[in-house]
């Protein structure tokens, strides 16, 4: 999943990657900082290095492979992993013996033994700190036996063990004897939620999820029925749809979840097995033997980030996370310096990506006046029309150092290519991807009037775009290019049989040449972008999204269905950290309504919608007199929000002494806790049940927040929290601890054995089964407070008009759970706040800024160039069977009832080719992959006499 991002940053004209470097100082002021960097030596020039790997192959020195967490070895000349960006090797100076072998072998002359540490400076307007985390090192926790017993590994090491590129090539093995384990135990909260032994009082927010995932993947890899047990205090699968995965692991795949505290791990010396000694919920000390133990280590801010913070003069919290305010979640204590990811606080990948976009929004807003002043762009010459010309094909065969040339007889393949139809020029190069070869290709295109180019080298996935740009640079249409992959699909897999590999290379080149002759020049459609934005929903998320866009200089129409802005947050008073929500909301509303770029439309209802990215049209009815407005806009941000579930459980609505957390918040705000002598809170009301499988994420902290307010106002009040798992993730764990310290009593119950609530004249009577005491407890309460879950606002009508996809719980579906958490599947449409899933105000603000940032990537362009690889219909021969309409995963082909034809809008076609494949009459063709352009390759292959 991360590879495409690696490639994108690696290739982006406006991202300058500076590796092996650290920050020495940041001087100056917001908008104009001077940064001094320390550039450590790499000893291999990343510009010259082609990543061929000859240096590593000949390096005689072995070193510990830190990428695989020390479980195997690498060479002193190394690259961390095959997909690395930049694709350049480096030399590990600590182990290199300076033998000179790599220098002799490097054909690209990239080795620099004399490389030294340097300093360089940058001028930047904003700084974003995303320095991340490291796994907690459990070496000092001797009771767990890490470092002492070979089969006790950390979760980071276990990730590498499971990985196909890991030390055991993806085979599930334990380190001691490379035997496949029969039983694995995961021990949770190692280096988290532990102020005694390691000082990290926070919850790392990710370990429960990765432990469940590791158990599930390990079960897939195992040849036996692997027994997986996860020893935990609480399972905190609080994210959107995370609970479903946990339940699948528990109920379907038999992963055991054991509520416990681990006492010690000891080894059985004869077998290398491990005995886990633990205390269960009933207080019994038990032992169980496992073949392997995985320590679920928490996330921790590395030492280098503390130094970074000092150099930048930004404040850290007591756990060394960057200090931020609940209402400005990505701003550090220094103006113009922003933060995101785990340096901001423990969080998972979607959370990090969301915050990264939020930080980009904040950093960009400060510099909006200077947008585009530092960016580079390439001027392309006008395209020449070669459609009437006979094909004149140039073939460039790559040696890839010795990656191809060491196996395949490259000169022979080149000579063979010269004899193929329409080929007028052939050459072979040491590295066809190098900059000097690009220049050479350009020269030859002009000199030989080439109108088709074939490169026989590596994978189009990584290199096709670059070669296509080379064609464009000399006025040749980019689609007149074809690649033959004679490395990944040939020399690498037939390295032992060079003669056959050479023959196969010829076959692949013959096929590529045949196809290239059939290629047509294609025109990329250019669409204009309307710079106006539409934000639907005027709560905290919608308002922040509108402000984020307004600050970047874009006009925004903000729709709110109610008469006033604010949404659900109007019902709230304080964040758990003590942030004043009312004051914040008032300021936010005033900022939004007074912003000259934002038009607020209250009492608004969407009644019609059409268009595509860059060019949407939405009709809105406004106010009570139903005034109609048509808004033309380039992007949409959906922030329709959520509400508190109205309980049907526990006599809610029948007895006024049963309230929700939101109502309790009001009571505490108005009357205080002075007259409360006993309060019982019940968690997971309307969440984690058959009707709503998911966790509502916010209710545990809500209970803790209100419990703390009660205890602080009136320490005499007895507060009981009846819970299933306490999910105070991240830094909120401190408040949970504080609540326990102040005497709030937490009692766990199982979902099949919920508490019983009865009304009586003297108060409410709550009966609960206590696990530790193994008996029923009766608690008298003057208030029973239900932690009611969150629900999405009803958006049925809106979705009917705008055709947005929702999950069964009514939350909108993002384009990708992990990598595109605020993008919706349709281009130009974004999502934030509770409309996406339950979340805290702080999280909604970050997500709103993220949506604004994602939208800015669209709005900052005047036009969008679309790929020419789209499907088109031959309407004359089409029989209107509607197979394409039914098959398209993006609902692009439509039947125009007026014209009686199938239409495929190239502006929204994704070019996947499914319709072309299923069309029974072959009347749909996919540009660049037309039937004869594919079939001619097969013909060419068979013509070789296979």
């Amino acid at each position, binding site marked *: 999943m991360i590879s495409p991002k690696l490639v994108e940053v690696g290739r982006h004209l406006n991202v300058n990657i500076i590796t092996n470097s650290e920050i020495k100082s940041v001087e100056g002021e917001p*908008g104009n900082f001077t940064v001094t960097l320390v550039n450590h030596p790499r000893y291999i020039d990343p510009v010259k290095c082609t990543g061929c790997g000859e240096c590593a192959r000949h390096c005689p020195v072995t070193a510990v492979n830190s990428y695989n967490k020390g479980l195997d070895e690498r060479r002193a000349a190394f690259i961390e992993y095959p997909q690395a960006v930049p694709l350049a090797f480096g030399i590990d100076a600590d182990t290199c013996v300076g033998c000179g072998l790599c220098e002799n072998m490097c054909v690209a002359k990239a080795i620099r033994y004399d490389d030294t540490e340097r300093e360089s400076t940058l*001028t930047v307007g904003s700084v*974003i700190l995303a320095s991340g985390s490291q796994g907690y090192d459990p070496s000092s926790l001797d009771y767990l036996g890490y470092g002492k017993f070979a089969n006790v590994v950390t979760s980071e090491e276990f990730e590498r063990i499971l990985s196909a590129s890991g030390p055991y090539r993806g085979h599930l093995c334990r380190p001691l004897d490379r035997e496949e384990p029969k039983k694995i135990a995961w021990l949770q909260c190692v280096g988290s939620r532990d102020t005694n032994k390691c000082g990290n009082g926070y919850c790392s927010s990710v370990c429960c999820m990765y432990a469940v995932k590791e158990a599930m993947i390990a079960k897939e890899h195992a040849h036996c029925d692997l027994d997986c047990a996860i020893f935990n205090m609480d399972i905190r699968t609080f994210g959107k749809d995370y609970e479903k995965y946990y339940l699948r692991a528990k109920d379907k795949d038999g992963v055991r979840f054991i509520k416990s505290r681990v006492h010690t791990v000891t080894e059985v010396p004869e077998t290398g097995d491990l005995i886990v000694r633990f205390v269960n919920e009933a207080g019994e000390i038990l032992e169980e033997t496992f073949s392997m133990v995985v320590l679920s280590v928490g996330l921790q801010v590395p030492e280098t980030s503390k130094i970074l913070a000092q150099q930048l003069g930004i404040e850290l919290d007591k756990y060394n996370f960057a200090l931020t305010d609940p209402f400005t979640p990505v701003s550090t204590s220094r103006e113009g310096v922003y933060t995101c990811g785990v340096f901001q606080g423990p969080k998972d990948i979607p959370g990090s990506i969301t915050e990264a976009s939020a930080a980009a929004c904040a950093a960009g807003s400060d510099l909006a006046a200077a947008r585009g002043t530092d960016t580079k762009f390439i001027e392309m010459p006008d395209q020449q029309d070669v459609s009437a010309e006979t094909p004149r094909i140039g073939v460039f065969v790559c040696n890839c150092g010795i990656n191809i040339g060491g196996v395949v007889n490259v000169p022979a393949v080149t000579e063979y290519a010269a004899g193929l139809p329409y080929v007028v020029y052939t050459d072979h190069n040491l590295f066809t991807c190098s900059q000097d070869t690009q220049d050479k290709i350009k020269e030859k295109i002009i000199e030989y009037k080439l109108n088709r180019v074939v490169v026989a080298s590596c994978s189009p996935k990584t290199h096709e775009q670059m070669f296509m740009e080379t064609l464009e640079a000399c006025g040749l249409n980019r689609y007149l290019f074809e690649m033959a992959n004679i490395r990944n699909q040939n020399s690498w897999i037939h390295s032992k049989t060079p003669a056959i590999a050479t023959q196969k290379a010829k076959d692949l080149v013959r096929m590529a040449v045949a196809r290239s002759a059939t290629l047509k020049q294609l025109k990329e459609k250019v669409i204009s972008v309307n710079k106006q934005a539409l934000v639907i929903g005027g709560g905290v998320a919608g308002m922040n999204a509108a402000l984020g866009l307004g600050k970047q200089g874009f006009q925004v129409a903000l729709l709110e269905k109610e008469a006033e802005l604010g949404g659900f947050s109007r019902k709230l008073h304080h964040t758990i950290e003590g942030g004043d929500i009312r004051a914040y909301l008032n300021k936010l509303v005033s900022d939004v309504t007074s912003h000259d770029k934002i038009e607020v439309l209250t009492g608004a209802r969407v009644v019609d919608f059409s268009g595509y990215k860059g060019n949407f049209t939405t009709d809105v009815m406004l106010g009570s007199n139903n005034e109609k407005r048509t808004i033309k806009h380039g992007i949409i941000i959906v922030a329709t929000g959520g509400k508190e579930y109205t309980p049907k459980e526990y006599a809610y609505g029948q007895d006024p002494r049963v309230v929700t957390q939101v109502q309790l918040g009001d009571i505490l705000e108005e009357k205080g806790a002075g007259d409360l002598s006993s309060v019982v809170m019940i968690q997971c009301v309307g969440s984690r049940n058959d009707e709503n499988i998911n966790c509502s994420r916010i209710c545990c902290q809500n209970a803790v927040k209100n419990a703390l307010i009660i205890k602080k106002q009136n320490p005499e009040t007895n507060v009981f929290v009846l819970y299933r798992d306490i999910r105070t993730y991240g830094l909120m764990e401190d408040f949970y601890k504080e609540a326990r310290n102040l005497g709030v009593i937490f009692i766990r119950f199982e979902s099949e054995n919920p508490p019983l609530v009865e009304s009586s004249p003297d108060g409410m009577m709550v009966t609960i089964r206590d696990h530790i005491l193994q008996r029923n407890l009766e608690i008298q309460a003057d208030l029973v407070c239900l932690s009611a879950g969150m629900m999405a606002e009803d958006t049925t009508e809106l979705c009917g008009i705008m055709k947005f996809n929702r999950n069964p719980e009514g939350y909108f579906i993002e384009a990708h759970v992990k990598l595109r958490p605020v993008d919706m599947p349709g281009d130009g449409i974004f999502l934030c706040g509770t409309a996406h899933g339950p979340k805290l105000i702080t999280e909604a603000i970050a997500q709103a800024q993220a949506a604004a940032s994602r939208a800015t990537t669209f709005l900052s362009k005047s036009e969008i160039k679309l790929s020419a690889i789209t499907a088109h219909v031959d309407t004359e021969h089409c029989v209107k069977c509607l197979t394409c309409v039914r098959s398209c995963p993006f609902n692009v082909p439509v039947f125009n009832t007026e014209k009686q034809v199938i239409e495929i809008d190239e502006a929204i076609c994704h070019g996947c080719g499914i319709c072309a494949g299923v069309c029974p009459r072959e009347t749909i063709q996919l540009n660049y992959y037309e039937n004869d352009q594919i079939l001619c390759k097969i013909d060419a292959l068979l013509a070789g006499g296979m």
Partner: protein
Amino acid sequence: MGSVRGKTSGSVMVVGAGIAGMQASLDLANSDYYVHLVDKLPTVGGMMARLDKTFPTNDCAM
């Protein structure tokens, strides 16, 4: 790079080239700002490039 002429620079420095740093860089670069992406390691990718599969889709992290 950078602006010596005016007060405000159109460039941003992102420190750390893990998934967060890369996403911030791409958003900014695609919004017409120039980005310097700095990492202490020889390679971008950070912690996510060291994972096997990811929760809850079981997609390959790489």
